[in-house]
């Protein structure tokens, strides 16, 4: 158990490629932190710097009270779960779990106790004598987790551990990882590019983009108040609708399109207006809603039923980006149908038209 502190950590690769640009995060003891971002955002590099598998160019990583910049991975008191599991193919499951403990010169009895205990927690007891190749993907994943658990480390590091599993197993393992982490109470850093995984697992999310932190916060806070257009489009599925608009007197004008019935509250020239698909409501055509934050007239392109709900893809008469609207699964809109949609003022997000930051 320990806190992990990252202080302006930078990573510059040969050829002056800056993969991580001064990232600072304070991770509390027992917290589950998820680093999320698109590929190439530096999330894995950051995790590997915490693990000690990458050198830190500048900045400081502390695990507990100890600065670990120059500490060997084996001595950092961390355990890591890899995307492809990285099990030793020639060793039995038992030896895979025991290997790290043996290297530390632990007594045989204690090793045995820990391996059996981890096997019990993960329900892999009956596979202990098998080789990894005789296991299914989910079982291998459990063994990889077991290898982390037996070490009883100060922190778990997960590098996209679920991305090699099929969809059903992924959901199952996700729940299991969360349950396990809560019951062990071990500080965890988890890297993923899957926003759903990130939302469901994290105590706090760290959204990364191009080596910078875009936003840190509880998942629901990040969802409700995205700090930038990047976060707004990355977190949530389908993504938030983003409309580039410019100020038109006291109102707003969609770029390359019609005027919008929204207020120019913030006194800027250009904005990006964001509305989540579930915050757009269909109202009777031609009705007046003076209290609405935004009112849009759209033409239906496609209706996409996904079961529990349906998504309407619709666009503006005069062009502009396609919008997604979440509707009830009973809705039966036809392509070409005209819809009037409104959103409440508190659900309309305004971002700076230039740097994309939330206003």
């Amino acid at each position, binding site marked *: 158990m320990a806190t992990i502190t990252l202080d302006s950590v930078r990573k510059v690769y040969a050829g002056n490629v800056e993969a991580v640009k001064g990232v600072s995060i304070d991770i509390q003891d027992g917290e589950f932190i998820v680093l999320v971002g698109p590929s190439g955002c530096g999330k894995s590099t950051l995790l590997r710097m915490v*693990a*000690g*598998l990458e050198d830190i160019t500048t900045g400081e990583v502390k695990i507990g009270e100890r600065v670990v910049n120059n500490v*060997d*991975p*084996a*001595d950092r008191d*961390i*355990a*890591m779960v*890899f*995307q*492809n599991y*990285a*099990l*030793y*193919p*020639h*060793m039995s499951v038992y030896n895979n779990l025991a*290997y*790290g403990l043996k*290297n*530390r010169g632990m007594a045989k009895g204690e090793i045995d106790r820990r391996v059996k205990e981890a096997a019990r927690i993960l329900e892999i007891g009956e596979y202990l004598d098998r080789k990894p*190749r005789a296991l299914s993907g989910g079982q291998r994943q459990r063994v990889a987790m077991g*290898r982390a658990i037996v070490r009883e480390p100060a922190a778990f590091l997960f590098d996209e551990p679920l991305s090699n599993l099929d969809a059903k197993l992924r959901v199952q393992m996700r729940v299991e990882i969360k349950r396990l982490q809560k019951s062990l109470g071990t500080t965890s850093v988890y890297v993923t590019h899957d926003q759903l995984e990130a939302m469901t697992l994290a105590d706090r999310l760290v959204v990364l983009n191009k080596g910078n932190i875009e936003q840190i916060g509880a998942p629901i806070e990040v969802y409700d108040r995205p700090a930038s257009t990047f976060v707004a489009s990355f977190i949530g599925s389908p993504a938030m609708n983003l409309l580039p608009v410019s100020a038109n007197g006291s109102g707003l004008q969609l770029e390359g399109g019609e005027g919008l019935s929204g207020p120019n509250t913030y006194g800027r020239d250009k904005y990006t207006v964001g509305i989540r698909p579930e915050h757009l409501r269909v109202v009777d055509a031609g009705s007046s809603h003076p209290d609405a934050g935004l009112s849009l007239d759209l033409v239906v392109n496609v209706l996409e039923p996904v079961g529990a709900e349906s998504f309407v893809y619709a666009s503006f008469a005069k062009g502009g980006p396609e919008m997604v609207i979440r509707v009830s699964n009973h809705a039966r809109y036809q392509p070409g149908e005209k819809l009037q949609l409104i959103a409440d003022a508190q659900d309309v997000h305004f971002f700076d038209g230039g740097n994309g930051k939330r206003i």
Partner: protein
Amino acid sequence: MKRIKFSDHVILLAGVFFMVAPVALAFLTSTHDAVTIYKSGMQFTFGDQFLQNYETVLTRAGGFTKEVDGLVMLKNSLILGLGFAIGKIIISMLAAYAIVYFRFPFASLCFWVIFCTLLLPLEVRILPSYEIVQGLGMVNTYSGLIVPLIASATGTFFFRQFFLSVPDELLEAARIDGAGPWKFFIDILVPLSKTMIAAIFIIMFVYGWNQYLWPTLITTEESLFTLVRGIKQIMQVWIGAQIPDFNEAMALAILAMLPPVVIVVIFQSWFIKGLVESDK
């Protein structure tokens, strides 16, 4: 699946015939006495001298000094073949390990220099090699026979390619598990390379076993003669009215063939098992 036709069998049988016939002929001939062979050439029947011929070549001391028999030569050949194969595997694994896993200046240059030596077979450098071995006083020793030959570009190349295919995560997992470079090599890489080691062992053992020119140069003492040299020794007795002991030469040739066959059979099953079960 396509039905197997008669013509397929014919082709396979022809293949078997071409592969087996010379060996069978040598074996059958080795069971006759020298006079029969000298008179009527290679024999197609099983003769009555089988036990006698084989006993003779294994136990009768021959040569000028009368101190080297078939068993001694067999032992020498085994020492050369095993030392050659094992030495090559150890040296080339270590070289490949250094090239793949350690960052040192001119690593890839080193690799390509080693690789280029593939273009220079032993015969090209045999005089300087002899000069060095002789200068070190290693003529007529087993180490003189083996050590100068164990650097292997082929082996280094194969192991390098294999190590490159081992996922980096294994190294990283091992590092986190507290395995240093040596432990990683012994505990992870060597066991993973088993199939590769088996393949290279087969090739190198047979190659070493069949060495002729190098042992001829390095060993002048008959007690260090190998089987391959022994065969020639038997044929070299064309003195006076003596006829060469063709039967014994054939018997020795068959004996010389056996250990490589045994090695191939043993390691092949291991090798194929590894290939079938392979996943890294």
